[in-house]
Structure formats: C-alpha cells, structure tokens
C-alpha cells in the first residue's frame, strides 16, 4: 500500500467551530402567556380588531392571514417568521381560511409585545451603513431595492416600489437617515 504520507486523513475534519446544537424552540403555547394588558388597552385592541373584521355577521374574527396586519396596525413590528410562530406555523392555505377570535388573539399579541429587540433607529442606520460604499450617508437605491427583494423576508416588487417612491434623488441615491425616519414614522 502506498504510504499515506501525503493524504490528509479524510475523516479528520478541518478544525471548524463546533456546530451549535439546534436550539429546540418549543411550540407556542397560548395558555402559558400571562396577559399583562390593562383593560383600557384591551378596549383599544378590540376597536382595531373590529376594524379588520370582515366576517359577514361581524363575529369579531379575523383570518390567520390578517393577524400580522392587526398586530402591526397596533404598533408592533414583528417579522413574518415571528407571526408564523405564534400562529402555530399554519400551512399556507390555512392563512386565508382559518379564523382567529379576539380572545385567542390576545395571548398572541401579548407575546409579540413582550419580545425584545424591536430595532432602534441606530440599528437601522447601522444596518444600512453596510451598503454605504462611499461612506457619505447615502446608499444606491437600486442596491437597496435588490436587497429588500432578495434577502431576509423578501418584499414583492410593488411593495419595494411603494416604499422607495420619492426617496431617491436624481442620482438614484437614498439618504438613509432620512429613509429610516420615513419608515419609522409610519
């Protein structure tokens, strides 16, 4: 047999960082959520909830698909992944058909409200600075559009368009501090 001098031992892995153990995120259990809302807040939520209720008999129910909209309309900004998590990871077709009543909505909303790391103005600006090649406070609109449509929780083209309207200057650059203010001002 030929000497194995030059062959690297196949099995010996290159020293790489140990794979993190997959963190077992437990399924969302609404009954474990402690509601900390005041009665006034709950009335406010009811008000908004009703606004989105499209059932013919006004049963105070919304579809799973609307859940994210209502939570956002009330001022939170979860990711889509977080929404899916609190809804119990429903299938795509369930989003339009499965209904959520107000009482089931509350623990979901509470969980989202408690989540930390909402993203501050600085986080935002930091994130966008990545794209600031010239370091002059602007990013290329085209690049930003590309990123929004292809990374993360991708946005659709018309959504990107809507967001970016009137943000770019004549050179196609976006002043990102102003941009962040615009987005956060809702």
């Amino acid at each position, binding site marked *: 047999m030929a000497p194995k001098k030059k062959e690297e031992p196949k099995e010996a892995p*290159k*020293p790489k960082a140990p794979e993190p153990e997959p963190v077992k995120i437990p399924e969302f259990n609404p009954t474990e959520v402690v509601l900390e809302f005041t009665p*006034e807040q709950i*009335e*406010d939520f*009811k*008000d*908004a909830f*009703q*606004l*989105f*209720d*499209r*059932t*013919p*008999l*006004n049963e105070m129910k919304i579809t799973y698909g609307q859940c*994210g*909209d*209502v*939570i*956002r*309309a009330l*001022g*939170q*900004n*979860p*990711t*889509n992944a977080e929404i899916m998590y609190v809804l119990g990871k429903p299938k795509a077709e369930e989003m339009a058909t499965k209904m959520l009543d107000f009482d089931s909505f509350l623990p979901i909303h509470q969980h989202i409200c408690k989540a930390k790391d909402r*993203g501050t103005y600085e*986080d*935002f600006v*930091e*994130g*966008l600075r*990545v*794209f600031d090649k010239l370091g002059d406070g602007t990013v290329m609109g085209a690049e930003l559009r590309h*990123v*929004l449509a292809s*990374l*993360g*929780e*991708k*946005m659709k083209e018309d*959504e990107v368009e*809507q*967001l970016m*309207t*009137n943000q770019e200057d004549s050179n196609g650059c976006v002043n990102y501090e102003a941009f962040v203010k615009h*987005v*956060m001002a*809702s």
Partner: protein
Amino acid sequence: MGCGTSVTTDNKGRRLTTAMKAAILIQRWYRRYIARLEMRQRYTWNIFQSIEYAGEQDQLQLSSFFSFMLDNFTQLNENGPDLISHLLDPVVDPWSDRERQTKYEQITVPESYSGPHLTFPLTVSHTNALLSAFKEQQPLHGRYMLQLLHQTKKLLKQMPNVIHLSTPYAKEITICGDLHGRLDDLLLIFYKNGLPSAETPYVFNGDFVDRGKKSVEIIILLFAYLLLYPDHMTLNRGNHEDHIMNLRYGFTKEVMQKYKTHGRDILLLVQDVFSLLPIATVIDNKVLIVHGGISDMTDLDFLSSIERHKVKTDCKPTGTVESPRCRCRGQPESPRCRSKGQDHGKTPKKRRHLTRQGSCSSSSSSSLCSPRGSSRLTPRCCLSPSMPSPTDALQVFFLMMMIIIMMIITTNNNNIDLLWSDPKSQPGCSPNTFRGGGSYFGPDVTSRLLERHGMSLLIRSHECKQEGYELCHDGQVITIFSASNYYEEGSNRGAYIKLGRELVPRFFQYQVSRNTRKLTLTQRVNVAEGSAVRAVQEKLFAHRSELMAAFQHYDTSNSGCISVSEWALVVESVLRLDLPWRTLRPRLARLAPDGSIDYQSCFEDMGPGQPIPQVTPNLAETLYRYRTDLEIIFNIMDKDHSGQISIEEFRQTWRLFSAHLGVEVDDRAIDELAKSIDFNKDGSIDFNEFLEAFRVVHKLDVKDQQQG
C-alpha cells in the same frame, strides 16, 4: 486557517449577515407601516359612509318640516309659499303641449351667447357641440335647456315603467352606476368606452344629480343622448331624482345658480321628467337593473302597471323627527351594518321605529304620496302656541285619512324599495333604518325574486364601493358605482359593466385624478383621512353642548378629564355614527398626563366662521347643526331669488322650525339676531351672509385665509 481568504470570507459573511439583518429590519418596519396605513384607510372610509348615510336620514326630518310649514304657513301668509305647495302638490299643467313649445321658442337667445344652439330633433352634431361646450365650461342657454327637458318629457311619457332590452348581437351593453354630478367621470367613461350610439348602448342606473357640481351638465348630456338614441340609451330613476332630495343635496341650488332667469321653470320641468323616468330595466329577461334594490314585496308585474309619474318624491312627511339609526360599523368590503336585520339585541329599536310610524307596514318606513291631504296626517305635530289646535272633528278626519293613506302606502312600497334598498348578508327583509327608507334585503329575497321571474342577476347601485363595484349574495347581486373619488380625492374608484350575449359581466375601473397621479399612497391616505377627521370634528362641534353635558356627568371630580372608555361611550351615544372612537381618539382629543382624556380638547380645533356677538352658544350650535336645512328653507322662501328675505319671514321661519324641532329658543334672541343681521337696516336679510356666519370652520383654515 490562517490563509487570507478565510478572513475576507468571514468579513463577507459578517457583512452579509448585517445586510440581512438590515433587510429584515426594514421589511418589518415597512409591513408595520403598511398595516397602519390600511387601518387609517378603513376608518376613513367608515367615517365617510357613516356621515353620508346619517345625512340622508336627516332628510326625512326636513320633509316633515315642509309638511308642517305647509299646514301652518298659509295661516300666517295668505299668499302662501307657492313654490313649496307647487313642489309638494301634483303639478297640474295649465298649458297644453303646443302652447309650452311655443312659449319656449319665444325665449330669445342673446347674440353674445356662444354656447351650443339646439334644434329638435337632435343630431350627433348637437351632442358633440354639447360635449365640447361642457369641456370648455360653457353652459347651455336656459331656452335650450327648457326645450330639451320638454322633449325628454314627451319621450318618457311614452315609455313603460320597466324597460325591456335585449343584448344586441356581437355588441355589449354598458351599465353605469351613480354619477352624482361628476362630469369628469362621465367624460372619462365616454372616452374609455365610446360615446352612446347604436354600437355602444348604455344604461345609466340613476343618481345622476346632487352632491357633485355638474349635475346640470350631466343631465343635459344624458337627456340629449336619450333623445338622439332612444333605443340605445336607457335611464333608470335613482333616489336622488327627486326634488326634495335635490333641495338638500345641491341640485336645486346648482340650477338656481346657473339659470337665474329660468331656474324655477327648469326645476319644475325637471321634477316632471324625473318622475317619468323608468324605474327598472330588464335585459334579455334575465338581468334586472334597478337603482337601489328589492324587497320581499317587489313584484315586477305589478310594477309595470302602476302610474309612476304620480310619485313625485319618496321623501314624504311622516312626522318622524329622528328615526333610530342602525348601530353598526362600516367595513369597506362587506355590507355596512353589523346589526343589519339582526333582530336580537336590536328589537327595541326596531319596535320603536315601527310605532312611530303608527300603522305603517313594516317593510318600508316612509311612503306617502305627495297629495297635500296626507301632510295633515301628523297629529303629533308640535304647533306653536299662537296657532289653533285641531278640533275633534279634524282628528276624526285625520283618522280616516290615515286609513286611506295606508292603502296608498302599500301600493307605493314598491317604488321606494327599488330606489332605496340595500343588500345585506343575513337572510330576510327588514326596514332600512339607516337610510330611513327602503329595505335591507337578504340573499334569500334575491334568490326568490330572481327565480320567480326566471332571472339570474340583479345589478344595482346606490352604495359607494371602494373598487367601484362589488358582488354579493353569491354573485347574484352586483353593485356598480360610477363616481370615483366620491368622498374625497382618492377615496374610491369608479366602474362600469359591459354585458354581452352570454350575460357574463365584465368590469372596467377608472379613477379621475387631477392631482392623485402625483400623490403617493401615503399622501392620498393623508388627504382623505384629514378630510374625514375634519368632518367628524365638525359634528363634534355641532353637538358641543350635548357632549359637554354628558362629559361633565362622568366627570365627578370636575377635573376636565374622563377615561377613554367614558369618552368613547359619550361620543357614540350623542353622535351615533358607530365609528371606532378609540382608534380615532388620537386625531380627535388630547390625553392628560395620567392617560385620561381632556375632553375640552375635542372642540379646540374648530370655531365659528365669523363671530356674531348676539348669538349665544346654544343658539349658535343649533344653527350649525341645521344650517343646511335652514339654507334650503330660506331659498324656498326667497321667491324672487334675490338672496334676501324680510325680517318677518325670517322670524316666522325660525319660530316654526324651532317649534317643530322642539328646540327652546327665546323669541327675543331671535328678534335681536334678526335685527343685527339686517346690516343696512332696510328690513330684509341677506341670508347667505347670515348662513356664512354659521359655517363651522377649522381654525387652521381661518388662519390660512387670513394669511392668504
């Protein structure tokens, strides 16, 4: 390890992660932003709809006032308000057809007139001339208007109540909904779809006039095309083709402003023409087109047989001061009323409504013929102390009249239902309390009617829809609405339907946009929302004393603050618009540091147009609230359209109005007010100036005006 590439790989990896994080952050915030925008759009829409329908309900109040005035006014003034009686009585035309025609031909048109000249029978060149003239803001002379109306009246007399059409081979019929005086929308439709012709037949489903500023131009065009192509043009009557509605919603005013000499004659003629418009159209015996809707009492065969021209108006005096409003929240896409037709929890209101009507049948809330006799039929009329109360003999007479009227009511149900009803999602048929007329009809009512007549589709209008059209009752009912930007710039699109042989509707949408093209979605929502919020603020201001009294009732510690819940409760109980008050709160009232509401702040932004010192806050408020009604009444009293009425007339009108409303107003206060408004002390009042003072304005507007 250690080689340069992996460092850059790591850097790259880190940058990618940061980029991804940034992207996710932006995406999250964007989705929040859009959701909040959607919420604002929804409540803006709710506000517009609520206020619109609440306003239409007030209409009943006005008509009951007319009958009251009619009963009592003649005792004060021997000559009587001839326009009122003319309007409420069936018109008996003393002139023959030929005489009228000659009379109009004798009207001279001045040399200086540069608009279109019409000769009859009309030709395409006339309609083209009208189109160009209106695009250039050139009006049509009164003489031609009268002649046009006269010819239209002659034509319509020959038409049946229900028009039967058939889809022409290889062509489509275009069906349009409410236009409400929006000429731009009509022109846009003609532009997109083609002018009416044998190739392009049209059906216009009512509500051509009121609210918009170009109702006159619209009916001129519609009637001209009707005369030109009577077989290819069909006009259905809408609930706004009604002189009482016109008095309130702007058409009458528009006519009087545009035609100073012939305005009255035109109005009387228009009234006749409106009452002669057909009430329904049927296509291929399969598609029914009416303006409002149907009810469980609709019978098309019966409908064909009634004498429609006798029904001048659906707004009849009934003595109701305030019909209960349906407590419901509007949704942009689904039927407006949450509790429409739902009996549980709402029966008390319905019952109250029914008893007020006395022995009226349950499926319609207001339906009396216009004959004067019926107007005496209001035993609960509040008579001002100086007038004699009805004797016992009269009361017996009243009762007999009631019985007769009851019989008339049942025959007139059909008419009202067709023009005023709205679909609802629950089964059954119930009175349309929100509108104050017509019914709410459920999917079962639709199915039954369509089945009975072998039809497959009901097309109606009457309700504004965000997309210009909406299907309901499982596709059996289509609502088509053709006035885009109805509530506000950018509020909704307009649409029309094209129907071919297969009777499968195709929808075409559009939106007239002078400025909207340049506005982003956010800006459009801001504009619409601003306008809606202002409308609500005006309402709050107009009910200030009632609201303050109720607020103070809850404010036991006299701190000027109450909880948000209490605030929302009070506002809803006074205004009864069924809006999401808590969500609207940030736009309407300020919070105190402890989270409660400083309720005075509701009224901060609004103020009177011009201060009038003699007016007490109470009086001012009443005037704000009824400003539109007063304007209408003054306009009627002003027989020579000079813009002035005598002080005595002013006083009497005001006394009557307050007696009717049951509002306590000090006679002396009115007298002083009248004297103070008579600026040049000649015994007459310029009521437009008077009313200007009682227009509620937003304080910011006033500032702008002062600076601008």
